[in-house]
């Protein structure tokens, strides 16, 4: 009942909050445009709705995560940061904050979001880049689907797993460390899991992007990947293992740039982005796990899943863990 009340309140309040600030809308209209830097799939439809509803010219620049920080810092230091609004994994946003790239702004639309999504007055977390086990429904019998992460260490998965390189891919490294800190009872249990996983000789790829294709085609049976691919790759025979433990992921944050040329349009854009309308599109069209209350990706069972954010690891920690995983997975 309490949950239902929150959902109803959010439904009434959130769109009103986005529409109400006509003063902001007027100032934004005077600026005429807004530039958004991010690295997410299928943002253009959201930009199109924003442009149609506000009459502004919203432009989206997609920059891959590995080039996000160098690009933004290069532009910022040269006094040419072209972004008004920035979106990236939380660790990247925190580094930008440390460099003075971000400006304070608390969007009224985020009022309904969980408290932990707003740990300072600059970065607003709106989603979790959630990681799960996705498998080929035609190759894996229901009885064989992992029920716990530990099941992946079973020798029956030998040469059947694909995952991003645990020695180099920051999100995978953070996820493995997150398992230790949030899921496994002891470090010894976690280490046994890692050794079992490594002994199964998973195929290692550059990032999450190339993980679903080998599972779709049947080259591999299961992937440590992102459940959102069930939506974006439909009708591929993919499903996710509903493990009894929580799903983990890196939070996605956003903020306004300290040197925004269109600061009011930036605020209006951030309000729109955090609204149920935009978050609903993100969840429905591309399967993202968003934090707007009551909005879930249309993946069976995901509304009941416990999805928790991973703590931000420093680059030094990521590098140290990467070296540890390199040894465990016997990588050259």
């Amino acid at each position, binding site marked *: 009942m309490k949950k239902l009340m929150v959902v109803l309140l959010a439904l009434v309040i959130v769109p009103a909050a986005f529409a109400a600030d006509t003063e902001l809308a007027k100032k934004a209209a005077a600026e005429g445009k807004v530039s958004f830097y991010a690295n997410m799939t*299928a943002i253009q439809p959201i930009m199109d709705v924003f442009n149609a509803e506000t009459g502004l010219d919203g432009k989206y620049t997609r920059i891959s*995560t590995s080039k996000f920080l160098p690009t933004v810092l290069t532009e910022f230091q040269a006094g040419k940061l*072209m972004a008004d609004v920035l979106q990236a994994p939380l660790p990247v946003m925190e580094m930008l904050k440390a460099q003075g790239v971000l400006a304070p702004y608390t969007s009224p639309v985020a009022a309904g979001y969980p408290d932990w999504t707003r740990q300072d007055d600059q970065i607003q977390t709106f989603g979790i880049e959630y990681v799960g086990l996705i498998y080929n429904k035609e190759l894996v019998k229901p009885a064989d689907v992992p029920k716990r992460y530990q099941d992946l260490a079973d020798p029956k998965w030998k040469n059947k797993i694909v995952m991003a390189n645990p020695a180099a891919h920051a999100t995978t490294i953070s996820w493995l460390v997150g398992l230790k800190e949030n899921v496994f009872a002891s470090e010894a249990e976690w280490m046994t899991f890692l050794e079992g996983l490594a002994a199964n000789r998973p195929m290692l790829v550059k990032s999450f992007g190339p993980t*679903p294709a080998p599972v779709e*085609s049947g*080259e591999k049976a299961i992937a440590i990947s992102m459940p959102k691919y069930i939506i974006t790759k439909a*009708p591929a025979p993919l499903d996710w293992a509903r493990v009894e433990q929580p799903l983990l992921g890196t939070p996605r944050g956003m903020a306004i740039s300290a040197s925004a040329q269109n600061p009011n349009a930036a605020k209006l854009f951030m309000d729109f982005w955090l609204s149920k309308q935009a978050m609903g599109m993100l969840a429905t069209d591309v399967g993202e796990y968003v934090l707007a209350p009551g909005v879930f990706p249309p993946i069976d069972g995901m509304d009941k899943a416990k999805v928790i954010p991973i703590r931000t690891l420093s*680059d030094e920690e*990521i590098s140290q863990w990467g070296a540890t995983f390199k040894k465990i997975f016997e990588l*050259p």
Partner: protein
Amino acid sequence: MAHKRSVLTPTLIAIVGFLTVCPVIMLVFGSFSTGLGAFGEFTLDKYIKAYTDPELFGIIVNTIIFVLGSSIVATGLALFLAYLNTRTDIPFKFLFRIISIIPMMIPHILFSVSWVLLLNPSNGLINLFLRQIPGLEDMAINIYSLPGMILVEGLLDLPIAYLILAPALASFDIALEESSKVCGSTTLRTLFRVTLPVLRPAILAAFILSLVRSLASFAVPSVIGMPGRIYVLATHIYQSVATGFAADFGKAAAIGMSVLATSVTLIYVYRYLTAEGEKYVTISSRGYRPTVIELKGAKYPLFGIVGILSMVLIVLPVLVLFYTSLVPYSMIPSAKAFSMMSWKHWIEVINDPISLLSLKNSVFLGVVGATLGVTLSIFVAYVIVKIRSHASGVLESLSFLSFSFPGIVIGVGFMWFFVRTPLYATIWSLLIGYIATYLPYGVRPLTSAFVQVHSHLEESSQVCGAGAFTTMRRIVIPLLIPGIVSGWILMATMFVRELTLSVVLSRPGTEVLAVQIFRFSEDGLWGQLSALGIMMIFISTALVLMATFVGIKFKPVEEGG
């Protein structure tokens, strides 16, 4: 004339130097600076960390095998195909020419993925086919191996080698071979004792360009090497950059410096090996016409071999690409797959305004960029070949500077440079970056073409009162048409599928094809990616046909005899 020549070399050094040195200087600064930008406090830390890595030795060994292997495959195959196409009466020549340069038009990541679909040990199509044969039930050729990487990289570099060798073979002087035959040599002996030695500059140019290209290649090492746990310098650099959220391109540049040093050394080795330029001149003031060797009985068997090679090595991966663009997700061919085929991915791409804009931008960059690039290359190649001074050696090295840097690093070098100019985030930054980085694609075919034109021809023209420019326009350029066409094709097709610079420099309004393709690949959307990839092949084919047609139209040599 001497004055004009003396002005030409420094002018070109200034132009080419400005284009290629600026991003490299930025990377040098970045490699010696603390922090993530180009400028910071001085430190040697990045070099110390990069070069004291205990794994570096094994990675260098892998890299040497990979780079040498793929360059031998590329050059050997290109020589075989170019010889048959330009010098013999093998049928369907035009078709083979197109096939030889198709890998140039395909985004490398797509070509690599096609080979994974064909030869992965679990359910690669070729492996599945071979397992049907009695006795081969356990067949599992593994593409995720060094030989697999060498094969695919060799095929991807084949067009570079082919487009350098073909013009050299096309302008080969019959007199040399005839003399050999008059002295009683067989065709085969003539080939090995006369033809190939005379072609040494072109063969070496093709080989060295393949070496440098495979050294900087990232698609094959990441798509095929990484899953096989085989790391080369390019993937090592990627890992050192990508581990963590704050990518340190300064450290990547520090590793890249050794690649750069290797490439520059190779250029000097090349110059040393071809120092006696006169030996390789084949077009002098005497008339020349390349001869066609009759294959007689060997005609159809050789045609069969080339046909099968082309089919397996090039047509099959392209067919896989087309198939992938029609099926809803990655699936091996089956009745179910065929029943699910549709044009969905094509329609999505055609209806996507950014894909259409990127198509337009890429065609503009391909046509305008290649034309400007080849024009600059003619002058650069002229200085390198005809004015063999110390300064021309400097110019030759400069032309390779940006090209030699690993792709993922040089893009950032250009960003660090352009952000300090008004060109940042405009299409002109892409145009300039492309020409600067891929200048060797124009310069190499033209130098190997220039080497074969005897200076007597220019001297005769000047004796008749023509100026340097008129001599260039009336005498030299017409003889260089095959080289110009090759250079233009290499540059245009490269610019149409260029990714490494574009992914860093492209902004809203300046999107290009490869960046769209890269986005699809990041999202794992192979269907849309393949559809756009095939459109890219169509555009490049149209550009190749256009260039070939113009080349044929303006080739006065055949008329003159």
